[in-house]
């Protein structure tokens, strides 16, 4: 496998869906390739940072309206 091929298989690798044969070739390539190891680390970092954008404060008026709706729902 070449680096150009390996970079396109990284999401499949991270999701554990490569065939056993492809996985073996992928891992064999990775052990000897700093560029691809770095690239995989960077994809993992990108994924981790995307998890960090999850937080967004609920605007106060929206929260108030939803809490009122919850109270009405609870009362009914």
């Amino acid at each position: 496998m070449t680096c150009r091929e390996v970079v396109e298989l990284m999401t499949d690798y991270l999701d554990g869906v490569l065939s056993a044969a492809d996985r073996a070739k992928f891992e064999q390539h990775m052990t000897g390739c700093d560029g691809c190891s770095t690239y995989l680390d960077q994809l993992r970092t990108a994924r981790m940072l995307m998890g960090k954008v999850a937080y967004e404060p609920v605007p106060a008026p929206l929260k108030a309206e939803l809490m009122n709706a919850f109270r009405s729902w609870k009362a009914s």
Partner: protein
Amino acid sequence: MLSVSLHVDPDLEALRSGNEAAFEALIGRYHGPMLRLAMTYTRDRGAAEDAVQETWLICLRTLSRFEGRSSFKTWIFGILLNVARSRRRKESRILPFTSLFWRDGDNARGPTVDRRRFGGDGLWSQPPDSWANIPESRLLDRETIDRVKVAIEGLPAKQREVVILRDVAGFDAEEVCSLLSISAANQRVRLHRGRASVRKTLEEYLK
């Protein structure tokens, strides 16, 4: 599946018992991913907030009918997708919305890394620089996170919705396929292309 129907979701239980604090925590926890997903379909943030609000109202109204065939979280996001898509259809009747969503060609094949970075032998000629020496404080600072937000918002819509569901909202591959009614292979292609774009943005920003 038996294991799914027997699964007790603590959020669901808390809501059903009328626990206000649990509801408040839940809307807070999901607001970011829900808003970002809704923005994939709506013209602006305000319309996306309306979609999130409508979703929660529907959730409350139909909570008694939730049967646990999917996880509670999947059920909530499924409602959001229906609401956002339906709002988009209505908007497109009023606004000259030139089918932005379907035009983006994001299932395109083609490499995710510039071919010029590889030699004729397919090996790196311009490998990426390691980020190992970048201090965590910089990697996690507000500006980096803002760059990531902008990068996600700039993705073609079909990639964006998969990336938001997988990497922002934290769904697994199977759940995303079910929510979006797409194949596992399609889900992975979109995710891979989306992640590769976000990585590229970060690479340019962090160098």
